[in-house]
């Protein structure tokens, strides 16, 4: 088999498509591509990201079908510059995903939606094949330090609501100097509510945040099980 075919097969059988669902996110995380919107308007980087967001659009359901059909394992809704909870077709997609119960679908979200009722409506459409992964880096007080604009309190409420509704809920926690002291508290919270906690070693440094020396990844990014 040649390299090209090997790539296609590997992606089809082993890959889980990383899907950007729209061009919207209300947060201002300092290392996000969107942060370049804070640069001077005459800079190349500002113009480039502005144009990219302008060109962006919502993933259409017909295209979501094509992605689900290709990746045998499933897909994850993530985002380089958007958050899936701001995808206008999300509820329709959640309904559709019930026809793909053999595929794992992960929803990676760090941007809080308007209220808990929104989450209740979303969770009520979810099948067992969906996992919600909440990106909260710390507890209620420290969550918004890197995730600028995040209503961390609402996110915690949403995680608990999801668990109460029988939804698969995971918690992704990037370890920084400003939240490393809360790891025991986070582990206890996760354990007491039966939530999978993933601790992330990251190189993110934007906005003045710092990563403790022993929480730096070997390369790119490392995720470890925090429940241990």
């Amino acid at each position: 088999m040649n390299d090209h075919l090997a790539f296609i097969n590997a992606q089809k059988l082993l890959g889980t498509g990383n899907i950007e669902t729209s061009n919207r996110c209300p947060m201002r995380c300092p290392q996000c591509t969107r942060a370049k919107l804070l640069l001077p308007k005459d800079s190349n980087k500002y113009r480039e990201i502005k144009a990219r967001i302008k060109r962006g659009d919502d993933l259409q359901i017909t295209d979501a079908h094509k992605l689900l059909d290709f990746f045998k394992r499933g897909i994850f809704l993530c985002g380089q510059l958007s958050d899936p909870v701001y995808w206008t077709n999300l509820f329709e997609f959640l309904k559709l995903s019930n026809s793909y119960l053999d595929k794992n679908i992960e929803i990676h979200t760090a941007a809080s939606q308007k209220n808990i009722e929104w989450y209740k409506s979303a969770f009520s459409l979810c099948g067992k094949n969906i996992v919600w992964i909440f990106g909260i880096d710390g507890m209620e007080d420290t969550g918004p330090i890197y995730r600028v604009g995040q209503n961390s309190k609402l996110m915690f409420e949403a995680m608990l609501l999801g668990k109460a509704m029988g939804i698969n809920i995971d918690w992704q926690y990037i370890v920084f100097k400003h939240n490393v002291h809360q790891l025991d508290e986070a582990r206890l919270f996760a354990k007491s509510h039966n939530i999978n906690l993933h601790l992330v070693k990251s190189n993110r440094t934007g906005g003045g945040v710092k990563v403790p020396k022993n929480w730096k990844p070997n390369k790119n990014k490392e995720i470890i099980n925090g429940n241990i």
Partner: protein
Amino acid sequence: MINYIKPECMPYYYNKEKIKIDNTKGVSQSIAYTTDGYLLPCCWCDAPSTKTDLVKAGLYDENLKLANNTSVEDILASTAWGEFINTIMHSPKNAAWCCREKCGVVDE
């Protein structure tokens, strides 16, 4: 300067001596779908710093937009994608910046 690329989107790689090394367990990067409707080898490629390389490689050609194709396979089977993969595997110094930066190996 990198010696070769150990792509996290591939089940194997070719080392410095051009020997094929299995890396099936190392496939950790999946194809990314972008906000403007294209497929890229992984999310690390979806960055402004490397877009020029990918445009040059043809991955942003209008006919490779997902909306303009009936399946993901149709896009991946294109000549542009074939050449892109070939460059990563056999001509790493000419590969896109993101592939050299994230998956390039200087010494191992």
